[in-house]
């Protein structure tokens, strides 16, 4: 349509270059499209823009992951030995082979399921106790004065240091591992919740009171949602620490679990399985933090519009 008026080449070429140019070397403009040129042009432009932006992203991601594999591959291929030694490190191929055998059996999945169950249970209890406790500690000065001294003493002790105590404390090793996982997640969840409550805008609290909210209603309908973004920060941090604690606990006292699997592989001199265990841990950790982020987006849709928010 657009070409009838003036110099067809000038006008038609920009919209044709990216898609049709090779097939129609001479842009006659003799094939009028249904859409107006403007619409079509902007469509092509935005598509090109999308490709441009995401191509770079894809290339950089490929370099990132490829670089990791490259170092691994070259290091093991040439048996590099500069202080750090690649002599005993399994090659990517041997790990792949190991994965193939292991994935066709049962044991590996059992280990993964055990670890996931422990993480979910420990994390569940950390939320169940940490979030409500954090809410009341954050809201009531007296509760804070009662609990915080004890919490401040316990908090700097890493969950791993609890392993011996935990084994003595709990009747089964399963319970003790879950307890250690719980401890890892508990403090980040609790302290972030407290912080979320204390940093909330006081006018919202006063507004809630003016609208007739009782003390429990205030906690549930005002303080909790106001602190929710910060609570989710606590969950993300807590999930990371929970994994650290879980793997350590499994390595020391475990039966089953991916940490146990990794350590057992070392004991049995099955080096490819060590790397497979590590990759599995990384993947599961990624999966868990991704799940938290997703749940956060779904439960807090208003954050998409908040100033300085995700948008």
């Amino acid at each position, binding site marked *: 349509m657009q070409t009838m008026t003036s110099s067809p080449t000038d006008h038609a070429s920009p919209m044709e270059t990216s898609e049709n140019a090779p097939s129609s070397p001479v842009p006659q403009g003799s094939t009028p499209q249904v859409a107006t040129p403007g619409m079509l042009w902007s469509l092509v432009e935005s598509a090109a823009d999308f490709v441009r932006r995401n191509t770079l992203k894809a290339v950089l991601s490929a370099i990132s992951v490829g670089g990791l594999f490259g170092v691994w591959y070259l290091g093991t291929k040439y048996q590099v030995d500069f202080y750090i030694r690649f002599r005993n490190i399994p090659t990517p191929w041997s790990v792949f082979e190991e994965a193939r055998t292991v994935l066709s059996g049962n044991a590996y999945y059992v280990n993964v399921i055990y670890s996931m169950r422990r993480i979910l249970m420990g994390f569940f209890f950390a939320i169940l106790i940490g979030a409500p406790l954090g809410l009341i500690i954050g809201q009531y000065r007296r509760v804070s004065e009662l609990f915080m001294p004890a919490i401040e003493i316990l908090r700097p002790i890493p969950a791993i240091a609890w392993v011996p105590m935990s084994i003595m404390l709990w009747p089964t090793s399963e319970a003790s591992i879950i307890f250690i996982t719980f401890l890892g997640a508990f403090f980040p969840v609790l302290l972030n919740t407290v912080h979320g409550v204390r940093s909330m805008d006081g*006018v*919202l609290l*006063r507004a*809630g*009171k003016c*609208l007739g909210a009782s003390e429990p209603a205030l906690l549930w*309908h005002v303080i909790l*949602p*106001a602190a929710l973004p910060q609570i989710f920060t606590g969950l993300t941090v807590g999930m990371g620490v929970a994994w650290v604690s879980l793997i350590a606990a499994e390595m020391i006292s475990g039966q089953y679990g991916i940490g146990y699997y990794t350590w057992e592989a070392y004991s049995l001199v099955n080096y490819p399985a060590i790397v497979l265990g590590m990759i599995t841990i990384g993947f599961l950790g990624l999966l868990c933090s991704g799940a938290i982020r997703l749940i956060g987006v779904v439960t807090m849709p*208003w954050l998409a519009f908040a100033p300085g928010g995700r948008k």
Partner: protein
Amino acid sequence: MSELEKGLIEARDIGVIFKSGRTEVEAVQNVNLTVNPGEFVSLIGPSGCGKSSLLNIAAGFVKPTSGSLLVDGAQITGPGSDRGVVFQQYSLFPWLSVRKNVEFGLRRAGMDRHKCETTARTLLGLAGLLAFENHYPDQLSGGMKQRIGIVRALATSPQVLLMDEPFGALDTQTRTVMQEILTNMWQRFRISVLFITHDIDESVFLSDRIYVMTARPGRIKAEITVPLPRPRTAAMTQTPEFVDLVNRLKTLIREESLSAMGSELKTGGVTGFEMEVGPEGIGKIM
């Protein structure tokens, strides 16, 4: 919505003293004021004169050191939904949609979900905000948020509405529009309003009566009845009556502001202050 007989606010010999460590600051001294049922009353004064303290007492956030504040003859014991409050800061719950914000007070009063929704939609419709019922507050402009704040405060059918510089954060154009919207809503709901502001034009445009407060410690310096007829229109702000009243109030407040700043001026060594800043300038500072 509410009967004209209800919504009487009486402040009797109110005094407020803030203590911080050993130092005591007398913020409010011996204040008596009345807001009659259905009346729109403004409280103006230089900054720091304790006008917000008085509103906080009426809302139930602060207890007076002496004296008493009664609403319909009953002593204030704490915040409650019988008194609607509109704050200077935006106070909508960001996690609730506009409609859920309006429903909040009704839900707390135990109204069932369906009835809440109907009531909230009716109110939003009256305020011309129904199209935004499903928006989140952060999607709206400042003026819009304050309009919803007013609707939310009115939803529980309070006898009185307490407003603490509700348009203070808005730009001049929006503020003018908001004032007209507020007079319209006030006439529809026939509710007593205690309105805190430092904007003299605003107080004259909106009020039946204006209390002028002195610099700290805040006392009532003057009580002025606004003779302008209702409904008020933007055009009225150009009439001689309006301008005269504004000028009278400006003079009253100017004295107080100067006495409040007096000590600062002396210590700061600023001279010729009055020459540099005319009456309009002082008005802006407040």
